[in-house]
C-alpha cells in the first residue's frame, strides 16, 4: 500500500498593496476570521524544502471570475516550484476554468460547493482530464455529532443531513468521477483540537475505493499520527497548522515515523544524481 500523505493546504486571497493586486496566503478560523501569513510563493518554497507529500492551494473566495488570469499565473509559478502533486481549488465554476488551471500546471483541481449543486460539472471535467485530475471537496459543519441516531451535518449548499446522507453525497461524488474526495470539517478548521476521527472514519468508509483527504482540526503533530492510525489510506491536510512559524512538515514526519507508520523515504542512492 502507498505511504501516508501529509498535505499542507494554502488558502490564498487577493489583496491590494499600494494600488497593485497581490496574492497573499492567509489562515482562517472556522472559514471566517482571517490572518495574513505571507507571500504564497515563499510559503511554498519553505514547504518544498521540508519533504511534503502533496500540496493543496485554495482560492479563498466564491468565484475566480476576473481574477482567473492572475490566478493561473500564480498556479504556473507554484507548479514550477513544487516537486510533488499540486491540487488547486476554490472559486472554480466551470469546466473551462478547470481546464485553464490544469493547463497552467496544476495536477488536479478541487471543487466543493459547485459540484454539490451540479455534479455533472465534476463529470465533464473528469471526462476531459481524467478522474485523477479531479478532487471533490465535501465541506461540512456539525450540528449534532455522530451518535446512535446518526448525527446531523450542514453542507455548503445549505442541506442538512445525517451520517447516512453524508455517505450518499460521497457516493454520488464518486460516481460523477471524483478521483479523490477532500472531507473537510469546517467547525474544527483552525481550532487545533484534532480531527473528528469518528466522522472521518465513517465518511471514508462509504467510499472504500476512492482515496480521501481529511482535514479540519490538526493542531499538533500527534493529531496527524492519530489520524493515520485510524485512516491509513487517507491523506491528512492542514492549513492553520503549517501556517504557524514554529510548526513544520518535518516535525509531523518525525511524529509519524515514531508512531511506526509508513512514511515516504527520502531519495538517497549513492551515485545517482537528480540533476544532469
Amino acid at each position: 500500500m502507498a505511504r501516508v500523505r501529509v498535505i499542507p493546504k494554502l488558502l490564498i486571497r487577493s489583496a491590494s498593496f499600494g494600488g497593485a493586486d497581490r496574492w497573499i496566503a492567509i489562515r482562517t478560523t472556522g472559514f471566517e476570521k482571517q490572518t495574513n501569513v505571507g507571500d504564497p510563493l515563499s510559503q511554498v518554497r519553505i514547504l518544498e524544502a521540508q519533504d511534503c507529500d502533496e500540496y493543496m492551494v485554495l482560492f479563498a473566495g466564491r468565484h475566480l471570475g476576473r481574477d482567473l488570469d492572475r490566478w493561473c499565473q500564480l498556479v504556473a509559478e507554484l507548479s514550477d516550484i513544487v516537486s510533488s502533486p499540486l491540487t488547486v481549488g476554490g472559486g472554480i465554476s466551470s469546466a473551462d476554468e478547470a481546464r485553464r488551471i490544469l493547463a497552467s500546471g496544476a495536477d488536479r483541481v478541487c471543487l466543493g460547493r459547485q459540484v454539490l449543486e451540479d455534479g455533472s460539472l465534476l463529470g465533464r471535467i473528469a471526462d476531459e482530464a481524467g478522474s485523477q485530475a479531479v478532487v471533490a471537496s465535501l465541506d461540512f459543519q456539525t450540528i449534532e455529532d455522530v451518535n446512535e441516531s446518526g448525527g446531523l451535518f450542514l453542507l455548503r449548499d445549505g442541506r442538512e443531513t445525517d451520517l447516512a446522507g453524508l455517505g450518499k453525497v460521497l457516493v454520488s461524488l464518486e460516481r460523477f468521477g471524483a478521483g479523490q474526495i477532500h472531507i473537510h470539517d469546517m467547525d474544527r478548521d483552525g481550532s487545533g483540537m484534532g480531527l473528528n476521527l469518528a466522522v472521518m472514519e465513517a465518511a471514508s468508509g462509504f467510499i472504500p475505493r476512492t482515496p480521501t483527504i481529511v482535514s479540519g482540526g490538526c493542531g499538533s503533530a500527534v493529531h496527524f499520527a492519530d489520524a493515520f492510525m485510524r485512516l491509513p489510506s487517507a491523506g491528512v491536510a492542514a492549513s492553520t497548522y503549517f501556517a504557524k512559524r514554529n510548526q513544520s512538515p518535518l516535525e509531523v514526519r518525525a511524529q509519524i515515523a515514531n508512531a511506526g507508520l509508513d512514511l515516504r523515504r527520502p531519495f538517497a542512492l549513492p551515485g545517482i544524481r537528480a540533476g544532469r
Partner: protein
Amino acid sequence: VALADYGSGNTRSVAGALWRIGAEVDLVPSPDHLPTAAKALVLPGVGAFRSCVHKLRLSGWSAYLQGDRATAEGFPVAVLGICVGFQVLARQGTEGGAVPGLGIIEGDVDSFGGSVPAKHVGWDETRFTAPFLGFTDGDLVDFYYDHAYAYPRSTVGCAAISGVGNEICVAAQVDRVWGVQFHPERSGDAGLAVLSGFLRESYG
C-alpha cells in the same frame, strides 16, 4: 528534449521538471513539428487510455512511434512514456472496454486484480529488477503514483515493480523506448533522477 503536446497530459508539470534539471523543452504537437536535432521525446499522458490512444492517432504520434525502432538510424529519438503515456505503448488496455494500444510493449494494461484499494495513489516503494536509466537491480525508491490500471509483472522488458504484493510492472524498456507508471515530474529528486537518466541515455 521534445515534449509531445497532443492534448492529453499534464504537459506543464512535466515541462517544469525538465526545466528544473536544465533541459531545453520543445512543446511538439505532432511528429511533423519534431525538431531534426531532437534526440529525446517525452510522451506524457493522463486520463483515459482510450482517449489518449485516440489523440495519439489524430496527432500522428501513434504511426510515428510504431515505426522502425530497432536501430538508432531507423529511430533516432529515444522515448520516455509517463503514466498513461507509458500505458498506451501496450498491446491493449481494458479501461472502458478493450482498446488496442500502440503494441510496442508486450503486455496488456488491466485493472488491479481484485486488490483493495482499487486505486494506487500516493508515494510508494518501487523495486528495480533490472538496470533502468541509471538505477540498478535491487534499488528501492519511492515515487508518486496515481492510477487504477497497470501492466502485469510478467510484462516483457519490465524493470521495476510496485503496488500491493509488488504485482504490477511500473517501469519497462523495449529498444530505445522507456516507460514509467509513476510520475517522475512529481516525485521529488527521485523523479528528477529518472528524467536525468533518460536525457543522459538519449544524448550521451
